[in-house]
Structures are given as C-alpha cells and as structure tokens.
C-alpha cells in the first residue's frame, strides 16, 4: 500500500481567486525518493504543506480531493497527529529552530516532548537522529550558533526523531551555500538508503536527478508529469514551462546522445556510459587516436 496517496487534490487559499493546486494525483511508496519540481508559484510548497495537513488546517481556504498519509485521512486529522507519520522540513533553517531550547540535543527533543514520548524512549531516538545527520559532535552547541547547513540538518534530525514514515522537504537547500546543500543532499540520500520515503521540492534538478526514483513536475498548480527522471527530462515542453533541466541532459540533447528508449542521460555517470557506448559503436573508440 502506498505511504502517501494524493487523489485529485484541489486547493484555494482564502481570499484568492485561482486554485493553488488543481487536480493533483500521485502516490509515494515506502522507501521511494520523489522529487517535486516546477517554476516558482507552481504549487510546490503548497503541495508539501498539504501532505502534513498545514493546508488546509493552518491556512484554512477551500480544499477538495483526498490526501491519505500512512492510512490516515489528512483532512480529517489534526496536524500534530499527521506530523508523527509525515515529517516536514521547511526552506528557512533559521525559523525552524523552536527558540525554546538551548542546545542541539534539547532542540531535537522538543517535538518528542510535545508528543508525550516517554523519557527512556526519547534518548535513543535523539541519539539516533543526531547520528544519522552527523550532528553528534554539535549536540551541546546552541542551535543558533550553527551554520546554515548544520541548522538545516538539525531541522531534519528534529523531524526524524519523531520517527515519521515519510520525510517531506520543501526546498531545504534554497537558502544554503553549496557546502550546506551538499550536506543536506547527502543526508537525504542516506535516509532514503535506509528505507525512509523522501519527498523533496527542489530547484536544483542536477542534484535531484541522480537520487530521485520519480519526479513530479508541477506548473500553475497542475501536474505536468510524474515519472522517472529520464522520462521526465526527455520531455520537450519543459523549457517552455520554465522548468529547469540538468545541464548534462541539455548538453546530451544538443549533441543528440540518446538512449535506445529515446531518453537522455540525466547524470554525468549515465552520460559517460552512453558516450563510451557511442564511441564503441562508432568503431574502435577514440582511445586509439593519440
């Protein structure tokens, strides 16, 4: 059974005319890595927030369709309850720090205290979350004294300690430098390898492509595509929709380097593999020429 099942989701913010989400359907299986891409205002953040119920519970507004997270109808349950199954990490690492705690360790405990997790169970959970995100050495530091990447990893650890089934991240690296971005992507990849389902809205398609099993493309609140990265990035309509394509895919397209199924490579490894194959096919390869 799918962990997250979204069916014909429609949503309109209060006091607004157009639909922010217009008939979105997709599902996330256990252990799957799903990327959500699309231009600004396509509905990526709204969709992420709909997966934990902040849309509609926090913002109100009009909602239609269904979101089922781990068997729980999100529209009929409070955010606090859904949040134990679906963890949400936001863009800004800074405003996710509760401000109520003085150390990294205590910050991770915050959600567990709210959920009423017994103390004996809290400690192993916190330590596991800190270990998974590589924060053990920072555990006694003030959360506000961390770098952006560290702070974002702390936000992920804090959500992870709640032991959700799915981790949803809404542009988690948009305010980070390349180093912080690398840290966060490495953390997401590691979590997914350990069986966590990960859903991430992200602009950095070249980082997303090697990790994602599936990519959901949104435009103006509508689903444009929901498929494997290779098939999504092979679409001809993406530039017109303002959706970025990994540079390596763009280069391959211009060079006409295609796989047999008509798709283009989306990672450097794939491109390299294809290039070698093409060279072999061209007879003897270019290696002999020097």
């Amino acid at each position, binding site marked *: 059974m799918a962990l997250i099942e979204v069916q014909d989701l429609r949503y309109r913010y209060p006091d607004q005319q157009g639909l922010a989400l217009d008939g979105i359907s997709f599902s996330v299986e256990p252990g799957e890595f799903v990327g959500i891409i699309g231009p600004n205002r396509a509905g990526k953040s709204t969709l992420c927030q709909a997966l934990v119920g902040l849309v509609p519970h926090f913002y109100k507004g009009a909602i239609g369709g269904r979101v089922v997270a781990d068997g729980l109808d999100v529209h009929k349950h409070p955010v606090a309850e859904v949040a134990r199954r679906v963890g*949400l990490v936001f863009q*800004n690492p800074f*405003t996710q720090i*509760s401000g109520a705690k003085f150390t990294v360790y205590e910050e991770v405990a915050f*959600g567990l205290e*709210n959920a009423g997790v017994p*103390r004996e169970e809290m400690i192993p959970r*916190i330590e596991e979350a800190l270990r998974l995100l590589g924060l053990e050495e920072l555990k006694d530091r003030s959360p506000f004294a961390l770098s952006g990447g560290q702070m974002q990893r702390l936000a992920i650890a804090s959500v992870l300690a709640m032991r959700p089934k799915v981790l949803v991240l809404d542009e988690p690296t948009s305010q980070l430098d390349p180093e912080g971005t690398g840290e966060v992507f490495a953390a997401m990849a590691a979590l997914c390898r350990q069986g966590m389902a990960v859903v991430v809205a992200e602009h950095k398609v070249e980082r997303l492509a090697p990790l994602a099993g599936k990519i959901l493309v949104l435009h103006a609140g509508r689903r444009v595509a929901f498929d494997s990265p290779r098939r999504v990035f092979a679409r001809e309509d993406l530039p017109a929709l303002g959706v970025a394509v990994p540079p390596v895919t763009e280069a391959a397209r211009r060079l006409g380097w295609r796989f047999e199924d008509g798709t283009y490579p989306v990672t450097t490894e794939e491109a390299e593999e294809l290039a070698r194959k093409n060279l072999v096919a061209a007879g003897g390869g270019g290696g002999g020429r020097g």
Partner: protein
Amino acid sequence: MQLSLYVPGKTWVHRLDPITKLLAVLVAVVLTFVLPGFFSQAGILLVSLAMLGSAGVLRRAAPVLAGVFILPLTFFVVQGLVYPGNVHPAVALGPVVFYREGLLLGLSLTLRLYNILSAALILVLVTRPSDLVEALVRRGAPPRLGYVMIAVLQIIPIMVASTQTILDAQRSRGMETEGSLWVRIRAFLPLMGPLVTNSLISTEERALALEVRGFAGGGKRTFLKDEQIPPYAMAMRILVLAALVLGIGGRWLWGWR
C-alpha cells in the same frame, strides 16, 4: 548577546529546584511586609544576602543593589521632611529640618525595597530561566506561556542582530544612520519597515514549524530532563513555610510590634 542575568554554578543554591527558590522568594517578600520592626527586616535581608553570597553571585548583585540607591535617598528626603507623623526634629541643615519619625519610616521602606530586590535576585541570578519555566509547565502552567517566556530570551538577540544587518545594508547604500539625535530619529523609520516585515514573516514560518512538531497538540507532554530536587529542598520548603506561619502568627496572633 545574553539577555538573561543567570550566572551558572554548582552551589547548593543553584541545585535547589526552582519551585523551592520561588517559594522562598515569595515568602521573603510577604514577610517583609508582615513583620514589624527593623531587626526582623534586617534579618530577612541578611538571609537573602547570605544565600546570594553562598551562591557566589554577591559580586553580580552588588551593582544592582547599589544602582537603586537613588530610590532610598528619596525615601529619606521626602519622608524625613514631610511625613505627617513627624514630631521630633533629628537633623537640621540650615532651614531644612529632617524629623526622626520620617527618617525611621524611610529606613523601613529602604529595608523593604532591598529585601524584595535581593530575594528577587536569588531567582534572577541563580535560577536558569528555562528551568523555572519548565518547572512551572510541569505543574500545569500553559506550555504556550512557557514557550513565549523562553523564546523571547532567545529571539530578541536575533532581532537585534537582524536590526544590525538592515542598518548595515542601509548604510552601505548611503543612508545616514549615525550622528546627531535628529539624524538617528530619521534613520529609525526606514528601519522599522523591513524589521517588522521580517519579524512577521519569521513568526508565521516559526508557527508552521512549531505546528509540525506537535506543539499545538493538546496531549500529555513529557520532558527530556528529569526534575532534579535535592534532598534538602524539602527541609528548605518546610523551613520557609514555618517562617511564614510564624511571621503571620506573630504579627496577628501574638501581637508582635
């Protein structure tokens, strides 16, 4: 930047749980109004100062205590000159006569002021604010109130830092922000726009982040830290309550004056 005046330490006063300290402070404040006479007042003051001393924070308390001396000064001057009960002249400085009754009243008011202040300092200097708030939330105080009290301590310094960033950005584009009072006042308005907008945005974002971490959930909460109540805290509580009962009884049952 540090907003709290808490001085970390491991003395017996530090280890005393916040509720016992709160109780002791409240009793000291009540007793200073209940007990008559200078000796009892001075006694309470001595106890408070002794606690501050054994917590090793007398040095930090001294500037606070010295800083408010202007208030007692006005007590002595005003009461000494114009207290309605003034009968016996005590000191005469030319045509200005200070009366004994007024000066004594000034002394008693001064002792009260210092009693309240030094008792409060035990709480302020020797109790970690978050420990006090957590102890109260454990005993049924609303978690939202507790959150506000703690978060303010952390978030104000951050607002100060973001004010500095905005000011730097404005200065780098040629706005005058330093100089005469008038220049500073004029620089204040353009600062408020971004600062308030920023704060509103972060407040909404933080509210969302708190929401997904179950802060609004009304269920039973647990606490990461075990409450540490040293064995002598009970004795201390009993002692403090006995002092309160004795003081109230002495004043109204046995007619201490």
